[in-house]
């Protein structure tokens, strides 16, 4: 007995007729058919017989493109820039208020920059409503398809920006049609915001880490190199037609370092002033600059080399190093002046 799906079965109670248990037998037959049919798997989910069970860890159903689980942040594969501009739209609309954004500022001017320095989503309280993805004007937040998120503790479900970043290519792979719809607009808006982003602000967190490491390397190399030989070989990277984001950033840093080298007459006291932006990178840069300045000022100033060699892992250490370097530079300058 095949019951077409989606139809309402109206049972005929057969009032007035003598009922002697035929209905019970009919019911048993239906169940028997299901039992007998359940020994083969129901593959297309269109019949009413067969086992429907998907044995989950072993086999998984393909998820539809519009499936949504948890929000993630997209960044551009090519430039490494995040699509997010820190516009707070998602933070405002989020019903359980689990999105927390810190707007980026230009370290030099102190102005707002269309990027987010920190972006936190508390996955443990997120309810997967998808409002953030819908409201995002830059198509930066998208809903991920990953659903195996369980952890042993609550804290590890608080996702920071580095954990939320996904390349666009990933999103295009899980939801190609959805991405194709918005791709043109999103990329155009991204180009616009990239123009307004100084330095490395707005780069994906995974890249900034690498850039940081690379910069330190370069800075150390530059510091170790003799001052006279500095200008030309400081930038080892050739000006190629197409640079990877890392190389680009590295080049930038190297250029800055050489600029500092060139500025012989630059007053060493400038270094602490530049520390005002509470940014690690800026501080580090300042440190490097100060060190270089110190080297320029006094040839016989060995302590100045120390801070450059320190591996400044975090902002505080960097700041400390910068201050030390500045002090050392000042001392060296005084010595030089007195001599």
């Amino acid at each position, binding site marked *: 007995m095949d019951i077409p799906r989606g139809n309402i079965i109206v049972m005929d109670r057969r009032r007035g007729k003598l009922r*002697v248990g035929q209905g*019970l037998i009919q019911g048993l037959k239906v*169940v028997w058919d299901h*039992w007998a049919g359940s020994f083969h798997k129901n593959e297309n989910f269109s019949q009413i017989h067969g*086992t*429907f*069970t998907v044995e989950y860890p072993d086999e998984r159903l393909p998820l539809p493109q519009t499936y949504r689980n948890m929000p993630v942040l997209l960044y551009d594969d090519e430039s490494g820039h995040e699509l997010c501009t820190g516009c707070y739209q998602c933070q405002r609309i989020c019903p359980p208020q689990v999105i927390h954004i810190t707007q980026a500022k230009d370290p030099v001017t102190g102005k707002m920059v269309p990027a987010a320095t920190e972006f936190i989503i508390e996955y443990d309280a997120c309810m997967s409503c998808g409002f953030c993805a819908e409201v995002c004007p830059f198509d930066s937040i998208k809903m991920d398809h990953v659903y195996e998120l369980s952890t042993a503790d609550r804290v590890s479900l608080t996702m920071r920006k580095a954990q939320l970043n996904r390349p666009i290519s990933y999103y295009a792979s899980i939801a190609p049609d959805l991405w194709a719809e918005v791709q043109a607009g999103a990329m155009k808006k991204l180009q616009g915001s990239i123009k307004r982003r100084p330095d490395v602000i707005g780069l994906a967190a995974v890249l900034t880490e690498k850039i940081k490491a690379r910069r330190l390397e370069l800075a150390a190399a530059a510091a170790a190199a003799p001052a006279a030989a500095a200008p030309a070989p400081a930038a080892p990277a050739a000006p190629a037609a197409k640079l990877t984001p890392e190389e680009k950033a590295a080049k930038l840093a190297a250029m800055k370092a050489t600029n500092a080298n060139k500025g012989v007459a630059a007053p060493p006291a400038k270094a602490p002033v530049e520390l005002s932006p509470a940014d690690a990178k800026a501080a580090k840069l300042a440190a490097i600059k100060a060190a270089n300045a110190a080297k320029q000022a006094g040839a016989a100033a060995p302590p100045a080399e120390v801070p450059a060699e320190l591996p400044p892992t975090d902002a505080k250490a960097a700041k400390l190093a910068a201050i030390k370097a500045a002090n050392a530079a000042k001392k060296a300058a005084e010595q030089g002046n007195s001599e």
Partner: protein
Amino acid sequence: MQDVVNQVINTTFGWNWPSWAIALIGYLIVAVILFAIAPFQMLFLTLYERRAIARMQDRVGPNRVGPEGIFQPLADGVKIFTKEDIVPDAADHWVHFIAPCVVVAPTMFMFVVLPWGPGMVPVDLNIGLLFFFAISSVSAVGLLMAGWASSNKFALIGAMRAVAQMVSYEIPAVISLLALVLITGSLSIVDMISYQGGLFISSRDVASVPDWGLGWFIFTPVGFLAFVAFFIAALAEGERTPFDIPEADSEIVAGYMTEYSGMKFGLFYLAQYVLNFLLCAITSVIFFGGWQGPGVGWLYAQAITPVNPQGGWVFNVLAGVLGVVYFLSKTYFFFFVMVWIRGAFARLRIDQLMDFGWKFLIPLTLVNVISAAVWVALTKWGAADGLAFVEGWSPLVRWAVAFVVTLAMNLGAYLYLARIFAHSQAERERLDDEVLESLINVV
């Protein structure tokens, strides 16, 4: 068992222990075996039920713990053992504590008269059948204790329902068995099994029938009707789904088990599944010949028995194994039927349950008892008992006449009662409507 113990102790070791010590040891060994078997039956049946019902619902069921999920019951057991035992503050602590034991103990007692194979019965009581049902009615007391001691409304309602149901459905169960007791002429379960040799016709009724172990009561009209009535009553007594009113999850949480947790809850669960196993077993024993089946009788005739001391012990083992296989396969088939019914039917309301039991099942089984009397008269009585017209009929003819007459009686009774019952239900609905009308008029 006692012969074996006697053989080992007094002949092999030559200790010359008294007979009561031998008997005690024999009974102890049997008891230990049964106490080991009962929980394993429960473990197996839980898995069996879950897998079977899953298939009926187009699912797979538990299949992750071990191959095909065979260790799932053990995992459940470990879980239940590690749970905290919570007793409500307002509970009557002693009664609350004793109730699970009172529920479990009778189910263990019932194993005493259950035959597993030829010559494999713990105690062959001459009132075995009555013992079985007398003991099974004791667990009702335990249920009532559990429900009352929990001092919980749901528990009390569940216990009341359970007891009302058990007491009501014991009557049709016992009366339907009474018909077969009339035919067999004995209350001993072993006698009932040995009556069922033959081939569709019992060799006791017609001596010329070959003994293939297939002369089951189910092939007679009396036995069939008794089987249907008994199985329905067994469903009600085992609180299986169409009658699982006492623990209707959607209405009264878990009935009398609501305030139980941990191993006490596990004991209720154990009692329930062991009772289900026993009911299936007694169904298979009484209506489907128990261990009777092709080959068992022949094998047992070659074995060492009090009748035939010169047999070979190999035949003992073979007959035992084959008998137990037949018995267990029948039993598990009936458990499958229980699961099948669970998958198919919805739960009854308590008044429907009572109506069905008292107004349909009991009259039906009473008619069946009269049919059984007719059957006995037509197949066994002679001129000496005042039944002169059967003289000269061959046993087969007498059997056939008895078959037709009892079939007509039972079928007629069934159809008539179904009609009456349907009318009474309609009348009931009409009365309900009247009450509704009167309510409207008041308002």
